[in-house]
């Protein structure tokens, strides 16, 4: 397997605070990797750096052999990286359908002029998009809520819609920031299945931040553990679960998986 994403000596400082310090890790293509660590360890910050929301203080982020650090977020999305947010950021007043449709915009390329004169290119482009949205709605089991305004969806469905919206870009690398937050164990297990299914169907590479250990341990090929902005450990789920440093800093003595 080839490496799709690599962080090389990445540092991010906020004023005097080093949120991420000298970070190095690699993500293999088509894998599911986990990013875990105590609260405030710098996980979300790493996502923000990868997606261009923050500029790095130092270091390189390499995606498919291109340096992408400090690029504009939309360009990074263009290259095939997208994400979901820890604090959900949907287009609140648009419907489920419109949220996904908007995100599909990359998959056709008619111009403003084409749109205004409604030519063939426009029509075939739109048709393609509509089919794509339909397919996504099916996969994510959102079809029956397609005309509901995003703000009025229950929390769990909002998270699912965020994933659907991200998938609409047909990304190569998808970053999920606490996708199971606010879900009960049963729902979390369903989400796990969904993530695996997505990976297979869309040929995706996934990087997941989560505090639900059953999810991380259940689907990840590899896990990176952060603490105070530094890498604490890296390895397979077994290695991590038994690593005393990880247990001390993050998991706790007693097995919390229920």
């Amino acid at each position: 397997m080839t490496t799709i994403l690599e962080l090389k000596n990445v540092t991010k400082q906020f004023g005097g605070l080093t949120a991420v310090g000298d970070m190095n890790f690699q993500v293999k293509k088509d894998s599911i990797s986990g990013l875990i660590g105590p609260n405030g360890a710098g996980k979300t910050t790493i996502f923000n750096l990868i997606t261009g929301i923050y500029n790095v203080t130092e270091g390189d982020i390499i995606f498919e052999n291109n340096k992408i650090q400090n690029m504009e977020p939309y360009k990074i999305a263009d290259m095939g990286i997208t994400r979901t947010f820890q604090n959900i950021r949907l287009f609140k007043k648009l419907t489920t359908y419109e949220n996904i449709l908007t995100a599909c915009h990359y998959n056709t390329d008619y111009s403003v002029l084409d749109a205004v004169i409604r030519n063939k290119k426009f029509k075939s482009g739109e048709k393609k998009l509509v089919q794509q949205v339909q397919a996504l709605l099916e996969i994510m089991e959102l079809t029956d809520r397609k005309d509901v305004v995003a703000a009025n969806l229950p929390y769990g469905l909002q998270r699912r819609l965020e994933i659907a919206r991200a998938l609409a870009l047909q990304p190569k690398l998808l970053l999920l920031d606490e996708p199971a937050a606010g879900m009960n164990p049963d729902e979390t297990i369903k989400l796990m299945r969904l993530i695996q299914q997505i990976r297979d169907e869309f040929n995706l590479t996934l990087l997941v931040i989560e505090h639900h250990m059953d999810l991380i341990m259940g689907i990840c090929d590899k896990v990176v553990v952060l603490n105070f902005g530094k890498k604490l450990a890296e390895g397979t789920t077994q290695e991590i679960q038994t690593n005393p440093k990880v247990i001390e800093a993050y998991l706790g003595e007693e097995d919390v998986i229920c």
Partner: protein
Amino acid sequence: MLKVENLNVYYGGIHALRGINIEVEEGQIVSIIGSNGAGKSTLLNSISGIVKPQKGVISYKGKEIPRAPHRIVELGICQVPEGRLVFANLTVKDNLIMGAYLRNDKKRIEEDLEKIYQLFPRLEERKNQMAGTLSGGEQQMLAMGRGLMGDPDLILLDEPSLGLAPLLVKTIFEIIEDIKKMNKTILLVEQNAYKALSIADKAYVLEQGTIKKEGAAKEILQDKSILEAYLGKAH
């Protein structure tokens, strides 16, 4: 202590709560579990006055609660809201002091502040940082701490373990038990049903706006259908 009778809440056309009855006794931990969108937050928001129910009575210590949310806080009911809602533009310390807004006993406020810092050392480290830039979990700790600063008698906790690291989840539940020992009453909404049920005295299962089941927490923890639906044991 707290009694909710025939509570009905609508959001426009959505009937979010459909005739809910619950009762919370002093000194108890009462837990409410249920899947996404069941109406748990709506129930807590109705008690704290943020949501105005269309029908039903909520009474606290035998008296119907007032309409204005700040008057409800004055009675000693405090909510730690879902999604934290920390004051992003204030420092961590100022957030905690805002929690004690209705109190005037300066000295005890100082003491309580120290207590909070002991509970959450991370907050002391970050006490001069703007709350908006805290990590998700740090914000959750801050929200808890802020709620405790009000020295309430009844605490409404809406998913306090949301987004917390496993170690902290454990700590949070320990803290909840500690709070109970301080002779406070807790109404707890949680997705981590197993944990919630194991520390609660009593529990309600909320489904689609109605109470599906109620009883002693231990009994509910044994209930097979509950285990399947909420604890994922069927899989």
